[in-house]
């Protein structure tokens, strides 16, 4: 896919996220919008997957650790063809496979259950170990929030993966600097995060999480590292693409109301015009 098309796809995913959250009346806005580019790069360019065969044994696995950003996972899966786009409107409804936090087994393409923070990297490690035992070529990707590095389990997992040199594992940290109560460096400082990972024997890449060349380049580079697991610290803007949401931690766990959603969609559509003109 060309960069232009990736940007257009990410923009469409962002619009879906706004529509889903408006309809659901609850949910998280900032994280999903901020990670739309990373998810687009993964699902439309990097992951070895077959949307019509979601349980294909040799597929790459994507483990979402910070389950609260699932609107971006659901929207990306739908746009990629795992299930009809119309199902996105059922987010958080009774009986819907699009649960408020992901439930493994409910929805094609969802590879794990998560929500309570800090659990995903361990799950990804288990997949990675199992693949290594059977000499399988598929890779495991784990998406972590920065805030969930407050959890002790995350560090247990980082320690383990470093010790075991799990080179078929790539972690991607959504470094958006916010969590529910405020900015991460005020709540519980994480910096120097890259140095911490290096000290735990990880290969560390830092990228602009909205630059497709950097995202895809880093994900491909990780495949060529055989001595260590790789973490990609993706610097993202929470609420990316919607001016009044960007970098405001109050949008972490809040959905837009009708008026705000209208504004957001309008802004995203305008952006889409810019994407086209820039690349033309």
């Amino acid at each position: 896919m060309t960069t232009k098309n990736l940007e257009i796809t990410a923009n469409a995913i962002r619009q879906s996220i706004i529509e889903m959250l408006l309809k659901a009346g609850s949910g998280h806005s900032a994280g999903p919008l901020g990670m739309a580019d990373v998810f687009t790069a993964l699902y439309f360019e990097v992951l070895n997957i077959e949307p019509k065969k979601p349980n294909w044994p040799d597929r790459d696995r994507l483990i979402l650790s910070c389950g609260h950003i699932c609107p971006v996972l659901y929207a990306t899966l739908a746009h990629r063809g795992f299930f009809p786009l119309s199902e996105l409107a059922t987010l958080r409804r009774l009986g819907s496979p699009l649960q408020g936090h992901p439930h493994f087994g409910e929805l094609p393409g969802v590879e794990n259950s998560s929500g309570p923070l800090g659990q995903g990297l361990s799950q990804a490690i288990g997949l990675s170990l199992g693949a290594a035992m059977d000499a399988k070529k598929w890779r495991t990707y784990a998406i972590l929030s920065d805030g969930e590095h407050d959890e002790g389990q995350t560090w247990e997992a980082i320690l383990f993966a470093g010790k075991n040199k799990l080179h078929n594992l790539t972690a991607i940290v959504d470094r958006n600097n916010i969590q529910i109560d405020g900015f991460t460096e005020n709540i519980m400082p994480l910096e120097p995060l890259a140095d911490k990972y290096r000290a735990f024997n990880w290969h560390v890449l830092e990228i602009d999480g909205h630059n497709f060349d950097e995202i895809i380049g880093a994900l491909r580079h990780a495949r060529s590292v055989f001595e260590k697991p790789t973490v990609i610290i993706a610097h993202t803007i929470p609420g990316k693409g919607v001016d009044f949401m960007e970098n405001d931690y109050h949008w972490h766990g809040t959905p837009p109301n009708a008026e705000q959603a209208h504004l957001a969609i309008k802004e995203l559509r305008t952006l889409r015009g810019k994407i086209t003109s820039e690349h033309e």
Partner: protein
Amino acid sequence: MKYLTPLSETHIEVATRDGFGQGLLELGKNNQNVVALTADLTESTRVEAFAKAYPERFIEVGVAEQNMAGIAAGLALGGKIPFMASYAVFSPGRNWDQIRVSICYSDLNVKIVGAHAGLTVGPDGATHQALEDIAITRVLPNMTVIVPADSIEARKATLALANHIGPAYLRLGRSKVSVITSEKTPFEIGKALKLTAGDDVTIFACGVMVATALKAAKQLDGKVSVAVINLHTIKPIDSTAIIESAKATGAIVTAEEHQVAGGMGSAVAEVVAAHHPVPIEFVGVRDTFGESGEPDELLEHYKLGVDDVLAAVEKVMRRKNAR
């Protein structure tokens, strides 16, 4: 006293953790998907033999039970059958949320092995004596909960769990305890095992308390006719067997090395109350922590001895006859 199933004819004592270790080693040979994880307790959980024989399928996670639960979940997502072993106070104690979300909510095929459960841990004291593990595991949807009565049953349960798809908790003890069953004694997950025939009262017991219940029944032989049932599977509970017993004897005693609140006795009471209410007396730990001591003196001190089962039988018979 009439025995309804072949039991042990010897008088040896072996810890249930040893039966697990033996079963796990056999699984290693017969099932390539079985993997084992421990959190810095490989020898005392009896995973060591497996770890030595199949190092490529053994995972040492260090003192990190939460990570262990997550890794086991991931292994199960990839089609493995992980047995993750630690002490019950740490797993499922410390990592209950990981067991709930990463394992049970996804209905993953992970076997949680909690060793050193109950008072019979002994001198290590209250911090290491899990008295709540049955309660916190049986409350989780999708979970199977098994408390073997002796080492032979622990081995059978281990083998059976590898063929049982879904999350399960296997509760083991540290101390050597009487081997009461034999290789010929049947074992089926979810099926209560009636050991003796009796008309007056039924004792439901699990773990080390099965042997105690049998001793009590023997002492009462000729005076009170006691049916002893080994309720090794606490979830899914054998409702049919419990309802039949309630109807047949009209009085029930439960005996477990666990808190009375939320344990095996509570599970029995839930069935009895809903289907055929009869008097029940509970033998177990009564809302208190344990302490250091030798296993036998602890069981006696916390009122889990033969005399305590006898007293419970007497009390429940009185309540039954007063109705």
